């Protein structure tokens, strides 16, 4: 980071390549479509480079970058016509190391995931975003707060309300 602050573009490129995957996925979940997500992530990195001088020494880089990229993504969502529906990977796609379930178990698990995803998508935006950042992307609470531009306490309360809402929805659908 120090090298990047001093103008070393190789160091900056390393930072971009290290964080671009998560930055894009974060922007995708917040902006709602791949085109806006790519623009938001790219603009976010360019703005972050311009703001390197204001980066507090000793602070964590990832939440700082995510805050900038997520802000770009949220701005785009406000003007976006519609959000693409999130989708699950095809049933046949198995990650390396995964146990291969029986066809019946895979079908059942797939249906449960589809219901859970639909319930997440039906949440109000601020609850959905909190769930998306914290659990779907696996960000820490601090990173979620940075990405959403809110305090950590606000993230906790939004998550709590969102989880309660999801439990209610799933219970109504017959899932415990």
């Amino acid at each position, binding site marked *: 980071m120090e090298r990047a602050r001093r*103008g070393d573009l190789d160091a900056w490129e390393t930072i971009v390549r290290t964080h671009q995957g998560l930055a894009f996925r974060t922007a995708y979940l917040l902006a709602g479509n791949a085109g806006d997500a790519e623009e938001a992530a*790219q603009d976010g990195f360019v703005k972050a480079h311009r703001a390197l001088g204001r980066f507090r020494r000793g602070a964590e880089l990832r939440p700082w970058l995510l805050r900038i990229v997520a802000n770009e993504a949220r701005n785009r969502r406000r003007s976006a016509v519609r959000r693409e529906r*999130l*989708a*699950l990977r095809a049933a046949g796609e198995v990650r390396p190391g995964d146990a291969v379930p029986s066809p019946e178990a895979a079908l059942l698990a797939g249906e449960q995931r589809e219901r859970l995803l639909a319930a997440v998508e039906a949440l109000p935006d601020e609850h959905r975003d909190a769930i998306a950042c914290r659990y*779907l*992307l696996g960000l820490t609470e601090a990173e979620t707060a940075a990405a959403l531009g809110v305090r950590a306490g606000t993230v906790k309360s939004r998550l709590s309300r969102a989880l309660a809402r999801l439990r209610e929805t799933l219970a109504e659908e017959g899932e415990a």
Partner: protein
Amino acid sequence: MTELELRLEELGRELAFPPAPDLAPAVLERTMRRPFFWGRVAVAVAVAAALSAALAVPQARTAILRFFHLGGATVVRVETLPRTTERSRATGLGSPVTLTQAERRAGSRLELPPGQRPARAFVLGDSLVTVVLRTDGKTVLLSEFPSLGPGSLRKLTAAEASVQPVRVDGAEALWIEGPHAFEYFGRNGFAQAPVRVRGNVLLWTHGPLTLRLEGRLTMEQALALARRTR
């Protein structure tokens, strides 16, 4: 973590994200279009002018390798230095004036090391003030101009010159050793032709001023003098 939270994490791993594009080439290209700067206001127009001026010099067109931006100064590392002239002893520093007149024309008080207040100063392009000082048994030039004023300083460094980030009282500074040239763009379209620099140079900012120290000093000597300059 509750079962629902674990299920949500699992859901995240099962999401079909679009393939992540490689953002680095576009980000770097856009980054290169702008100067690097350390938290100070970017004078985009000045740097665009500096870039276009660099591109207009055939010898410098080979490649612009890197930008550094500090206060009102831009350092451009190029593969080949442009054609330069030796600085004229008579007029290369600008018009000789008294220190008071120089401060009036520059619009701010000059920063000087304690005990050094030369009778004469030189003003180039109405805003770059230079004084000649003696320190550590050597003659050095101390130049100052407002960072956000009408003037901008451009240094062109050859690929073999070293540009080292250093600090003066906690603020970013640049130490330049090796072949380089400098140009100054002042008020009313004033532009000084590239001048070859023989010594080493320390560039730093203090308050609203960008300062430049040139001479055959070591980096430690230059930094010590810069820290005393107030």
